[in-house]
């Protein structure tokens, strides 16, 4: 007759929580943000563009060809600020053939007549195409 003698199983050391699913989710989140988001150059001053339903899809705006107009009518184009400096810079680049089109990003509250006069000034400077930028109406 033999007596059975069994050793107790060694207790497994408690392991930390499995973080692999968390890593998967965070990587997916990262991929989504990288693919769906657009890194946009910040506006030189706070402005809220108007909304519109009709228009063409805008590619990523090029800050070097975007004319910013604040709600108070202040202008900024590339490194130039102020009416005279901005229009001089635009005329210089347009005459050098570097500026076929200008995107106008203006605050919704900017005076409309000022925007129209700016567009006239741009076309007089030799800019062939002027585009008004807006947010798509949801």
């Amino acid at each position, binding site marked *: 007759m033999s007596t059975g003698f069994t050793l107790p199983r060694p207790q497994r050391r408690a*392991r930390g929580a499995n*973080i*692999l699913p*968390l*890593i998967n989710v*965070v*990587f997916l*989140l*990262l991929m989504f*943000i*990288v693919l*769906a*988001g*657009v*890194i*946009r150059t910040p506006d030189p001053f706070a402005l809220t*563009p*108007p*909304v*519109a*339903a*009709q*228009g*063409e*899809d*805008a590619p990523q*705006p090029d800050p070097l060809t975007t004319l910013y*107009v604040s709600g108070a009518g202040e202008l900024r184009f590339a490194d130039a600020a102020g009416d005279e400096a901005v229009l001089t810079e635009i005329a210089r680049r347009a005459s050098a053939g570097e500026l076929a089109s200008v*995107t*106008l990003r*203006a*605050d*919704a*509250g*900017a*005076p*409309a*007549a*000022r*925007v*129209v*006069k700016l*567009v*006239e000034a741009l*076309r*007089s400077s030799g800019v062939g*195409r*002027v*585009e*008004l*930028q*807006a*947010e*798509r109406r949801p």
Partner: protein
Amino acid sequence: MAFRMTPQEKQRRGPDLTPVMDVVFILVVFFMVVSTFSDTLVKPMQVSLPGSDEPAATPDTARLTLTAAGLQLDDQPVPQDELAARLAALGGRPLAIVASADAPYKMLLDALDAAQAAGLADVKVQAQQEAGQ
């Protein structure tokens, strides 16, 4: 006595992923802060320039005046929500949008939107001449 994992135990448990998670979380926060999901569009704009070779306004050109007080189509007040229907009723007549000094830019975009929705092809924009000009 300090606890140390044996090489065999380290191999069994795999590499420590905590630094990777730290970096990935920082990347997620960075992209969330600098990314934008806003949907922008552009409208090509045509303006009438005095003295240019563009044809002058014809007598049948409809005139939409924008003021801070509201819209006027051929000197008749028009509610904003009826603008697209009234422009569609023009039957393809040329349209001149005249922006007064006190009208906000948002109003101009709304008018251009309505003109486009109404299918008007010949739309000009001009600033209202101020008194004394």
